[in-house]
């Protein structure tokens, strides 16, 4: 027989004025199993808690119902108090006499009866409560950051400076990401390379950071604090330890006409190459698709010339498995290509370029050394048209969302162009100018007012070539829809920001959710913006949604703080409100029949398969098992299970049934 104590709180006048607390306490004495019932002015006060603790000891209580305010308010308080009196904290439940009764009903018999009812229900529940213990999960204090752009670098540095090990995985040969491709950055127009390169070097030299460039995540197992991540180190065809980065191989490589990804196809590179001069690490890779040796079996010029003998033609990809405690995704974005717009000629014209290509044209380290030359014939463009929202906010052909960064970088592009070609004319076609950010609107105003960039509010319906010019046909909607025709030398499309190549596959590998457009989904759009639904996996930057640099960096530091917080303990402590699959002696083993229809009901991928094996190792039965490290305790699987093999601790079938049968 249970020995339950009921403690009814007046909450001063808050409950006491509407509910006859003394009467409630009296009525509760008659509930079977209640060994003690008392009312008190303020249960949550120190004397109130002390009184409760003494009563627990004196009356040898094994369960407590505190009838006071909302459990969302004081449940932790009272559970702590109960624990201090030597009773398992999960043997304490709260009846909500204040928010759900005294504050919302009129004083009277019915309200007092309702108060007693609320208590009665929980007394019955408590009879079925089990002592629960916090779940402890050990934590491996090494983080993995996937993506080595500015976001990933920031996360890695912040975690490393917090004293924890970080593995920074980047799929291309160098860290730096898109930011390393930019010429200048808005709204300050400071050189992108100049501010990024020191960070790249810092990351490379940090004792707590291990760089894994030219590497990709292949497989992720485990759960928060205990991931096992398999990384594919793609073969650079080079012994990185021997290579000094002298660059002789690059100079002498005979194959020099390969389209250069870093320059967005506007320049060329060799078959053995580093993506850009400031690359970190400054070690080349061999592009085996274009290398003469891999194509014809002859050449090996680089191998002959390498002073340290570092070239390894026979080198193969390597798989490395790492123990990781937390993962941060910072895989960035890609731009929509210019060839998806039929009205703009499918990008057939070389002089219709995207924003990133313009960055390379404007960059001092770019293919034109920063001199404005249009790609088709190298002439200085006299008139340039910039088209914002190319593909963004376009339900019919593009993506419905706003790409967020284009308003700003288009203003920047127009300014950069005007700074380089003083006599040139710059036009911007836009839908709305979204320049919400510190110094952002001022920046756009500067482009319009000081640099004389002509902003035309309207869409461009068509671009066609005529006599060596690009005829841009549009409308000026602020002039009553007046058609506008501009004969331009170059057109820059601010194409939509899209989720990066392979992000859906990566999301599936990591079991994180993603939206229709392949952007990773945050756990809560407002309150948990840097977390994913999978515990221990966090987000930074444009892999979640279009983001600019300051936002990416801020979010990166946020994600890093989450990781450092997670790593501040040896063990993770989690509320034991988790689902459990029942276990029985052989031959049943469990009520679970292994239909796994619950699998897709779990928002957290916490349901695993567990094989029951005989002594000879033969699988007798396959059961569902719920990983307590991943389960968040929603109970959706419990309601899905036909055999009632799954139950939720703290809200078990027996507890709820008992409550229902008391109503």
């Amino acid at each position, binding site marked *: 027989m249970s020995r339950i104590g009921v403690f009814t709180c007046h909450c001063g006048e808050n409950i006491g004025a509407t509910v006859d607390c003394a009467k409630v306490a009296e009525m509760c004495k008659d509930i079977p199993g209640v060994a003690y019932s008392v009312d008190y002015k303020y249960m949550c006060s120190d004397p109130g808690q002390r009184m409760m603790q003494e009563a627990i000891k004196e009356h040898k209580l094994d369960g407590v119902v505190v009838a006071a305010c909302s459990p969302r308010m004081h449940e932790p308080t009272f559970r702590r108090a109960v624990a201090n009196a030597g009773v398992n904290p999960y043997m304490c439940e709260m009846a909500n006499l204040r928010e759900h009764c005294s504050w919302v009903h009129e004083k009277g018999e019915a309200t007092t009866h309702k108060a007693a009812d609320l208590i009665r229900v929980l007394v019955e529940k408590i009879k079925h409560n089990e002592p629960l213990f916090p779940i402890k999960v050990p934590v491996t204090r090494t983080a993995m950051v996937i993506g080595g752009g500015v976001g990933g670098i920031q996360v890695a540095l912040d975690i490393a400076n917090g004293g924890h090990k970080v593995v920074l995985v980047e799929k291309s040969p160098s860290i730096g990401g898109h930011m390393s491709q930019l010429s200048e950055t808005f709204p300050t127009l400071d050189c992108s390379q100049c501010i990024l390169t020191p960070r790249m070097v810092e990351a490379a030299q940090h004792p707590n950071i291990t760089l894994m460039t030219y590497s990709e995540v292949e497989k992720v197992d485990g759960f928060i604090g205990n991931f096992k991540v398999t990384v594919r180190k793609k073969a650079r065809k080079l012994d990185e330890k021997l290579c000094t980065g002298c660059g002789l191989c690059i100079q002498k490589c005979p194959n020099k006409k390969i389209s250069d990804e870093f320059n967005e196809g506007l320049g060329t590179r060799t078959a053995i190459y580093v993506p850009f001069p400031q690359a970190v690490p400054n070690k080349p890779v061999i592009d085996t698709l274009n290398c003469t040796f891999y194509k014809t079996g002859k050449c090996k010029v680089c191998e002959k010339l390498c002073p340290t003998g570092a070239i390894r033609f026979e080198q193969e990809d390597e798989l490395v498995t790492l123990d990781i405690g937390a993962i941060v995704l910072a895989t960035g974005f890609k731009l929509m290509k210019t060839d998806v717009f039929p009205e703009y000629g499918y990008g057939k014209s070389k002089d219709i370029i995207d924003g990133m290509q313009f960055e390379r044209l404007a960059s001092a380290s770019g293919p034109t050394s920063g001199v404005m030359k249009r790609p088709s014939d190298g002439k200085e463009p006299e008139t340039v048209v910039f088209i914002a929202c190319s593909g963004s906010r376009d339900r019919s052909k593009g993506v419905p969302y706003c790409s967020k960064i284009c308003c700003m970088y288009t203003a920047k592009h127009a300014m950069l162009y005007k700074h380089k070609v003083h006599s040139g004319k710059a036009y911007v076609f836009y839908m709305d100018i979204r320049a919400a950010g510190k110094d952002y609107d001022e920046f756009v105003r500067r482009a319009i007012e000081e640099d004389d960039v002509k902003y035309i509010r309207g869409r461009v319906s068509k671009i066609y070539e005529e006599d060596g010019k690009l005829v841009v046909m549009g409308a000026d909607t602020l002039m009553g829809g007046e058609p506008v025709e501009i004969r331009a030398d170059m057109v820059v499309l601010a194409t939509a920001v899209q989720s990066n190549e392979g992000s859906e596959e990566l999301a599936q590998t990591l079991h994180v959710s993603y939206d229709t457009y392949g952007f990773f989904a945050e756990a809560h759009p407002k309150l948990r913006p840097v977390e994913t639904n999978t515990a221990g996996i966090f987000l930074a930057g444009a892999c979640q949604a279009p983001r600019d640099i300051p936002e990416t960096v801020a979010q990166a530091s946020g994600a890093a703080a989450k990781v450092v917080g997670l790593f501040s303990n040896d063990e993770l402590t989690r509320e034991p409100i988790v689902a459990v699959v029942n276990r029985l002696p052989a031959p049943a083993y469990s009520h679970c029949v292994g239909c796994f229809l619950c699998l897709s009901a779990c928002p957290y991928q916490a349901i695993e398969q567990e094989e029951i094996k005989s002594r000879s190792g033969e699988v007798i039965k396959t059961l569902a098992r719920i990983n307590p490290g991943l389960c968040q305790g929603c109970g959706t699987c419990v309601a899905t299970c036909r055999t009632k093999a799954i139950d939720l601790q703290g809200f078990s079938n027996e507890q709820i049934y008992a*409550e229902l049968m008391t*109503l």
Partner: protein
Amino acid sequence: MAEPFEPKITAFVCNWCTYAGADLTGTSRIKYQSNVRVLRVPCTGRIDYMMVLKALHKGADGIIVSGCHPNDCHYTSGNYHARRRWMVFKKMMEVMGVDMRRITFSWVSAAEGARWAQLVNEVTDQVRALGPYSEFRQIVGAGIE
């Protein structure tokens, strides 16, 4: 003279939205009728239809099932799963001839204190007008209690 009929209303609510919304009703001191008894579960996803059946079994005249609005689920998708379950459950109950005017599904967020009061009042009034769910009580009476 028999006492006027007061319906018994059972509400199943999720901890994070509707329960919190009902807390807000309290902190806002918005009054509503006291017929309802609230049963708290973590998520609408946890609400097994067995619970609704048992509530009817125990003589509930009206039932409220409520949780987070779509997209707002604390557990991301528990409410979406619940919604599907209710869609099928509702149709099954209709086929069985259960009076579905007595079961109300709703979304009440943690910010909708006034809406909770309104919902409870509406359901209470509606069920009071319908009278006791005697059809169901009869068959319970026919069993051995």
